[in-house]
């Protein structure tokens, strides 16, 4: 009688062989895994600008790049700054944010095209655990409160407007004729407004004029128009107005420097003089215009501070560190950059 041994004779041996093979396979797989490049610590920041040719935004961008380089040189930590232009399309910006996240950005800085349409970006960022630093165009409070890793850096529009108003008000106080050129006791002004959907336009417009009124400057609005922060649009509008109100315009109040410069372009083209202009931003060309005397004054925000705070928050968050102690954020999210009046220095 033959002994009945198991199916494979020695079952144990069969299983041993199988296990050995499995082990081999796993080891091979493990070895074949990718080797992470052992590199220096580095920080990757994605920045999306709402429109690349906005001078103020451009200046901020320049400062960001400078600050990044300085940080690199100081600490040896490589900062990979990826700056993209959304060209005024929220869609494009959303795609850019997606790309940032997929490329492994540690932090993104967004200058929203449409501040009411933030949820897509916040969703993506939250899902990927990527902190967001909004700047210059402020999302609504409800959106900002959705996550504790959302920040906003901006310039307090009311403060800007009040300072802007005070430029004219102070000058009027000192020397009314400077402002009221035709001496009719009224300062006739035209108003150049930014985008209608931008929170700053409304506030700046309102408070600028209010400040003048509060300071007792007799103002009369001739007309106003929306130039969407753009120099060329302001230029076109101003040209029209110069034709419409020849000799009557004494003051141009502009929500930002670019539009003020556009108005200056139109004035120069028309060969007119005697109009005071005030802007807000303190952009490089704006400051130059102040130096040259074509722009009465502007309210400059500290660009270095602006970019500096942005970078500080971004880099700290990217490296998982706490924010610098001296950095105080309102409600833990908001930072208002300091600003000051820029007027031509009397020699």
């Amino acid at each position, binding site marked *: 009688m033959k002994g009945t041994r198991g199916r494979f004779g020695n079952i144990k*041996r069969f299983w041993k062989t*199988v296990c050995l*093979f*499995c082990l081999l*396979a796993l080891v*091979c797989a493990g070895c*074949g895994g990718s080797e992470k490049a052992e590199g220096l610590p580095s920080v990757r920041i994605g920045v999306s600008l709402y429109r690349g040719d906005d001078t103020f935004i451009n200046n901020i961008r320049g400062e960001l790049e400078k600050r990044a380089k300085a940080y690199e040189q100081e600490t040896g930590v490589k900062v990979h700054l990826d700056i993209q232009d959304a060209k005024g399309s929220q869609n494009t910006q959303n795609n850019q944010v997606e790309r940032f996240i997929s490329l492994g950005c540690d932090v993104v800085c967004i200058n929203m095209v449409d501040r009411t349409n933030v949820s897509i970006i916040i969703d993506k960022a939250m899902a990927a655990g990527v902190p967001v630093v909004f700047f210059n165009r402020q999302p609504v409070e409800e959106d900002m409160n959705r996550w504790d890793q959302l920040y906003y850096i901006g310039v307090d529009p009311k403060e800007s407007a009040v300072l802007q108003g005070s430029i004219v008000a102070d000058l009027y106080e000192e020397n009314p004729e400077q402002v009221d050129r035709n001496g009719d006791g009224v300062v006739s002004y035209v108003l150049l407004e930014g985008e209608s959907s931008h929170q700053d336009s409304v506030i700046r417009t309102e408070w600028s004029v209010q400040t003048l009124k509060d300071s007792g400057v007799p103002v009369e609005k001739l007309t106003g128009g929306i130039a969407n922060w753009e120099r060329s649009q302001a230029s076109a509008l101003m040209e029209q107005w110069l034709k419409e109100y020849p000799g009557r315009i004494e003051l141009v109040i502009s929500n930002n420097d670019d539009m003020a410069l556009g108005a200056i372009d139109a004035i120069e083209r028309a060969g007119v003089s005697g109009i005071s202009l005030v802007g807000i931003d303190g952009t490089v060309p704006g400051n130059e215009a102040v130096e040259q005397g074509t722009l009465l004054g502007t309210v400059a925000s500290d660009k270095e501070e602006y970019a500096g705070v942005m970078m500080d928050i971004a880099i700290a968050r990217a490296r998982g560190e706490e924010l610098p102690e001296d950095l105080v954020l309102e409600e833990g999210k908001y930072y208002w950059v300091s600003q000051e009046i820029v007027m031509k220095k009397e020699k």
Partner: protein
Amino acid sequence: MITKREKIIWAVYGAALVLLFLASSTDLIIKERENPVYPISVVIEEDSDDQYVNFRKGMDQAAMELNADVSFITLYESSQAEQQLEMLRREKQDGAQALVVAPVDEGALETALEAEPLEVPLILSNGDGLAEYASAEVSVDIREMGRALGGEVAGRHGSGERILLFENGEETSVKGRFEEGLRESLSQAGFELVSVSGDRENGFRNALESLCYPAEQDAVVIALDPDSLLETAELLEESARYRPYVKGVYGRGTSIPVLNALDEGWITGLCVTDDFSAGYLCARLAVDGARGTLKKTEISLPFYYIEREALREPRYEKMLYPIE
């Protein structure tokens, strides 16, 4: 009766099955090649990317198509050869699998790399002929460009005209070659050439001033680099005084402000290049390099001399204003 041989066959077969299963249905053996992302770094010779906008657009297009991650590195200070070298090495250390460089000083770069090679593929943008140390090159013949521009200027102006060569005081290989070519054809045509450096404050302004005062003279301005060209255009736009004396402004450059200046008439004639294609090709060659499939290539792109009308021609329109 199951022989020993049979048992072995069963065991081996079973093991092969397990392997097959692992290979086909799990990620243990064959990893679905997630499209690999190739990190590439580009180091240019300037401290801002103003002149490289179209180039970057071309690179971005290639990056999207070929799944590359492009780092665009500008120097802390323009035209610093050592800094550029440092940047190259730093990028390589940070994991760049291929490098693109627009060299500040080719000679210095060559020497440095021969002493200590980079070990990653290096693509030259606007180099001077295929060098040993580079894996590929995408260039415009700058010297020829200079010659051609000189020819155009010679064609438009009498040899009696003074020619002011404006430049911003930074030495780069590209500028050097451009100047060489320019001087060649201009001297041949018998022009008098005066170099003016914008390095000193108001260098250009003073030069233009000197045309009006004390004695009135005409001149033709040729800018050796885009920055100087732009500055000249701005000067002319600002102040009407110089305009009658400046008979023509020429130079090279492809950034939008330069093109606008050409459109507005402050620049008379301009040498332009297809930067978008250059950027695209550089990025593609770099990805090939990262993949390991790069063969030594030298791509020569043409340059064009255009005047204002050309901006409206579809051909130039598409080249100079790339759609993204």
